[in-house]
């Protein structure tokens, strides 16, 4: 079992990555992890998902958006996060079910695609991709986030 917290650097572990340090086009480090039935069940509880919606030919699948809890880990392992990052949008494309009755070996990857300023704030856009261990594409996501130019200190 790989919990997202096993993969994701904590926001308070380091000063984090300022916006200008994100490198456009550079591949993010591959992120292998094991998605277990227990994680799927915990996720479904957390978003109150209806399991009956994800049954295909009698077999229980996971909500494909279960991958959302792993998405930011792909980026953060390459660029440790600052406190105060705010997600602005995301586009998901799902390609294949993830079965909920077995452990699935998955590899995450991606790259930063754009860095831009809007109303004086710095944003980055990046793509994350998830493939099964055998190379089958599971899902991809394009995410935009606001990245603070400085670290917010807790009072």
């Amino acid at each position: 079992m790989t919990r997202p917290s096993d993969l994701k650097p904590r926001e308070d572990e380091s000063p984090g990555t300022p916006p200008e340090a994100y490198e456009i086009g550079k591949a993010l480090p591959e992120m292998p992890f094991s998605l277990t039935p227990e994680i799927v069940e915990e996720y479904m509880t957390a978003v109150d998902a209806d399991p009956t919606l994800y049954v295909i030919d009698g077999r229980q699948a996971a909500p494909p958006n279960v991958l959302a809890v792993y998405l930011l880990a792909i980026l953060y392992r390459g660029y440790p996060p600052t406190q105060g990052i705010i997600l602005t949008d995301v586009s998901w494309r799902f390609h294949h079910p993830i079965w909920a009755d077995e452990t699935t070996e998955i590899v995450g990857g991606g790259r930063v695609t754009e860095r831009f300023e809007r109303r004086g704030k710095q944003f980055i856009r990046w793509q994350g991709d998830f493939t099964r261990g055998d190379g089958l594409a599971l899902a991809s996501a394009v995410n935009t986030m606001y990245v603070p130019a400085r670290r917010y200190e807790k009072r």
Partner: protein
Amino acid sequence: MSLKRDIEMTQAMIDRYGRINGDNDIIHYDHDYAIARGFRGTLNHGMMTLGYMADMGARTYGADWLYRGELKVKWIDPVCPGDNLVIETTDDDAVTATVQTGLAASGSIRLAEDK
């Protein structure tokens, strides 16, 4: 097909999502910090709201959703503990998440042409 769902957001729900999400950003659990940042309270995780919106995609498209679902979400305003979060879809594939102060997120749920 139009769908609607009401969710009473609580700090316990945000904390539960935070545990599975592995997210330690204090904006999600430190009320005083969130207020100091100018918010009404702690913020739920944007991907948590997305989870509710994605469920509408599965409800609308069935098994096809897992093979060629496309979900777009733009987060607009925070969802805080105590909010009544309303997730709605419309016949033109739009999906919204609304709280009492206005639109929290909007987007679309549709199927890609290619598999």
